[in-house]
């Protein structure tokens, strides 16, 4: 069913044959949505077939979630606390010894991996296992030249900084959200930039990236930080098309089925 909670659109899907495992929270990336990242790519099907209860959330200004004008609504810290409350409302409970359905598994992609990383680090009492797809070691969004991006969107003034220009082009073609809304998220991220080393999750982590993902060099850097970690690289895949790879879904389903 689809509902709006804490200002975000939440999709909860139940398996026909539930496994004795915790629910799985899915967190999509910048400029995407539940539908684009998880539904049409076969993630719901793969997780439900494995007996997993699925909780997926459209981030603020993404998919069908409202797009507030207030930049504070896009703060990563606020999104993380909303995600945890949404998962709790949907039945996720703190990890309890001897209760195999307690806890919460989290799968993130791209910016969603940043949120999953920090969520796991902040909530070891609830988050059990973490899968990070297309993760970044640093923060490409925080480095964006916001003023230049705003000028470009307002009157077409060319953007000098190459990575800002690339991100603005990506925002303009984003099927998930309007570019102006994405800039609210960028502004909020700049106030709370990602620093992987200061919030390392203690849970088992699976790192997955396309071999041709521009961020693939982040994998060994993240790998060094996490105590319990596995790494999967997908041959021939990019940041855009790694998410639907069968090998990714199979590895995640297997990783999240372990004790």
């Amino acid at each position: 069913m689809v509902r709006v909670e804490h200002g975000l659109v939440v999709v909860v899907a139940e398996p026909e044959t539930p496994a004795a495992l915790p629910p799985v929270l899915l967190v999509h990336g910048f400029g995407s949505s539940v539908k684009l990242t998880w539904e049409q790519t076969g993630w719901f099907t793969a997780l439900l077939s494995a007996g997993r209860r699925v909780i997926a959330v459209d981030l603020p200004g993404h998919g069908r979630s409202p797009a507030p004008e207030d930049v504070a609504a896009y703060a990563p810290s606020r999104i993380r606390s909303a995600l945890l409350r949404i998962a709790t409302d949907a039945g996720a409970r703190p990890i309890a010894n001897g209760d195999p359905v307690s806890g919460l598994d989290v799968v993130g992609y791209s910016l969603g991996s940043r949120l999953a990383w920090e969520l796991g680090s902040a909530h070891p009492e609830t988050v059990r296992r973490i899968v990070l797809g297309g993760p970044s070691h640093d923060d490409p969004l925080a480095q964006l030249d916001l003023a230049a991006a705003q000028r470009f969107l307002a009157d077409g003034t060319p953007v000098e900084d190459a990575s800002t220009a690339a991100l603005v082009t990506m925002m303009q073609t984003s099927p998930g959200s309007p570019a102006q809304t994405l800039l609210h998220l960028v502004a909020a991220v700049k106030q709370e930039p990602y620093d992987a080393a200061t919030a390392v999750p203690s849970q088992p982590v699976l790192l997955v990236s396309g071999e041709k993902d521009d961020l693939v060099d982040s994998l060994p850097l993240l790998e060094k930080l996490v105590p319990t970690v596995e790494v999967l690289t997908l041959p021939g895949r990019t940041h855009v098309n790694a998410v639907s790879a069968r090998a990714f879904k199979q590895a995640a389903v297997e990783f999240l089925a372990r004790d």
Partner: protein
Amino acid sequence: MAELSFPLPDLGEGLIEATILDWLVAEGDQVERNQPMVEVETTKSTLELPSPQAGVVKKTYGAPGEVIKVGDPLVVFEVADDTAGIVGTVPAEGAPKRRVRLSANLDDD
């Protein structure tokens, strides 16, 4: 036995073609309706398309990396004669056997 051909369906958003990323079934496989069949990439995103038909996969069109236009042949199934109906028509909807169900309707936007 009869053959049923299915084209690459309309993917919405004015998309006219898709690149094959990976076939999840092979020629000769017996597949269920709605079983994940092929992974494709468009200029917007990637999608996993379910099988539109139960039967034996007779032929698949497009190796990974190749482009298929919407409406061009994607897959041919071999099915029992009485399932096929008149060649070129869409077979009647049977009761599909589904292992999972989505409680959400994600297609309504």
